[in-house]
């Protein structure tokens, strides 16, 4: 194959992987921004999105509907968990939050195993998305291009939400100074709940989008959560731009690394995360705490 075409295809592959990672990392960073904690359950939520997506599609035949129902289900679950469990922990130290979200990850993974069984589930892509296009005379799946578009659209939508809406204003204010935001008469508890639900919805949307590509299987969440951690730590916890850049870095490192340096790619991402955490503890685009 022509090296230029090969490189271009790898580039598109990397972008589509970055887009999927962006959905899950963005939620993590939103939650961190406002609550100063890491949500360990985010990978399991992503997995839930994949399963709900597949089932919706199997039952109704509509891929579009699966992209609505999966995030909706996850957002409701997130809301319920935030209201019932997390609110009790904001006064405690951060490790309690870390542990309780890890508990949710355990419980959710097992609940999914009970509900869907141990076998992987896959749904067919609708015909319109299942085709291939020719990029520099080489075939490339249309769906991967769709993913790139979806990632870009999500980035734009979130940016507008953060900078053009009242909720976004409150989210940014609360991430700067929650006590002051509350003192000014804003309902920070409601903002937290909204952010957690939104973040879960985003992760599940990513899962539903990923399902036709990777299938839904038990363990989908455990591998992807580590990638998301790496992204958020490198980009800067709580930073929108940092998350976008981090997603691209990890997406490219994995795609190109696996192709050109398969021995080193896996370790290099972790080494990069360690280096960033030590040299710039706030991440590349985060502020120092």
């Amino acid at each position, binding site marked *: 194959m022509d090296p230029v075409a090969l490189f271009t295809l790898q580039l598109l592959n990397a972008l589509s992987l970055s887009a999927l990672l962006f959905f899950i990392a963005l939620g993590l960073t939103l939650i961190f921004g406002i609550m100063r904690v890491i949500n360990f359950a985010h990978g399991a939520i992503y997995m839930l999105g994949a399963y709900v997506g597949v089932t919706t599609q199997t039952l109704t035949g509509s891929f579009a509907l699966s992209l609505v129902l999966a995030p909706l289900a996850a957002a409701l679950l997130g809301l319920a968990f935030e209201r019932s469990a997390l609110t009790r922990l904001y006064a405690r130290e*951060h490790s309690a939050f870390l*542990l309780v979200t890890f*508990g949710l990850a355990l419980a959710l993974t097992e609940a999914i195993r009970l509900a869907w069984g141990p076998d992987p589930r896959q749904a067919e892509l609708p015909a319109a998305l299942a085709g291939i296009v020719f990029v520099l005379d080489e075939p490339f799946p249309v769906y991967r291009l769709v993913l790139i578009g979806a990632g870009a659209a999500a980035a734009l939508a979130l940016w507008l939400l953060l900078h053009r809406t009242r909720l976004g204003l409150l989210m940014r204010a609360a991430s700067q100074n929650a006590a002051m935001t509350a003192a000014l008469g804003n309902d920070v508890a409601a903002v937290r709940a909204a952010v957690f639900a939104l973040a879960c919805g985003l992760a599940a949307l990513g899962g539903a989008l990923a399902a036709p590509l990777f299938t839904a299987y038990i363990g989908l969440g455990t591998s992807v959560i580590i990638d998301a951690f790496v992204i958020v730590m490198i980009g800067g916890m709580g930073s929108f731009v940092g998350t976008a850049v981090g997603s691209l870095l990890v997406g490219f490192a994995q795609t190109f690394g696996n192709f050109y340096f398969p*021995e*080193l790619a896996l370790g290099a991402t972790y080494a990069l995360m360690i280096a960033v*955490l030590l040299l710039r503890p706030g991440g590349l685009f985060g502020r120092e705490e």
Partner: protein
Amino acid sequence: MTPAAPRAVLAAIAVLAALGFVLPGYAVTLLTEAIILALFALSLDLLVGHARLVSFGHAGPWGFGAYVAAGLLLVLQLPLPVAALGAALATALVAVPVGWLCVRTTGVAFAMLSLAFAQLGYAVVFKWSAVTGGSDGLPGVPRGGGPLGLDWLATREGFHVLAALALAGAYLIARGFTVSPLGRVAAAVRENEARAQALGYDPRRTRLAVFVLSYGLAGLAGGLYAGFARYVSPELFFWTVSGHVLVMVILGGAGTLVGPMIGAMALFFLEHQLSGLTESWGLALGIVFILVVIFAPRGLMGWIEDALRRGRRASRADP
């Protein structure tokens, strides 16, 4: 904690060791594994409970110790106890530079750093096939007794006793540390870092001491596990292992040393018994874990201590 506690713990471990000669073979094997897990949880409690450094990377020293021991057993044909001790020492040695970097931070950043180092170990072991066997791992790890009539240690009962001895020794070391001058300083750094520093204690070096001790004991546990399973694989390094041992510590009662050991053994046997009976066992465990973190942060041991206190008060009121 009453001063009698260590003696009670050692007596309990002695009973566990003696059970190795009484129980049927498969039960002894189970009990041996439970003892190794108890040692693993004990080592993590030093970090999580005593120093309040929540590590999500304890699979790192566990896996590292296992691979070191496997290497010593496979390549150098060393006797089992020597391989396990070698694993502990090698892990403690590696923990010095790793810990030096990790203990610059606390809280979430520490959790993420410890996780990243463990995953780095996973990546190295997974990809460096020439040495580690890659994703296949290293099968057929021998249990050599070596000279000096140590062959008995390679038998089912002998290995069981060896594991119990290791647990007793590790408990004495961990307990001795927490009540020692340096251990008290570690508690002070946990409670208020700035205050401890103003008294003249170096917070980072104090945390490093706990880190190295904790990793060394986890390496010992991992080394024993390699001899137990006779097989090591990259999965030992995977982060879910770190999460699993963390659950054992929290459910048992972080900061009590005894609690995590009980938690590890209880969880291991419950898993073994219940996972066969009901499919929803894992879900129930997850929910119980969430409830314990929220409502009973002192875990099983906190519950036991409260019950004992109530009992003592009742007996005092009614002489």
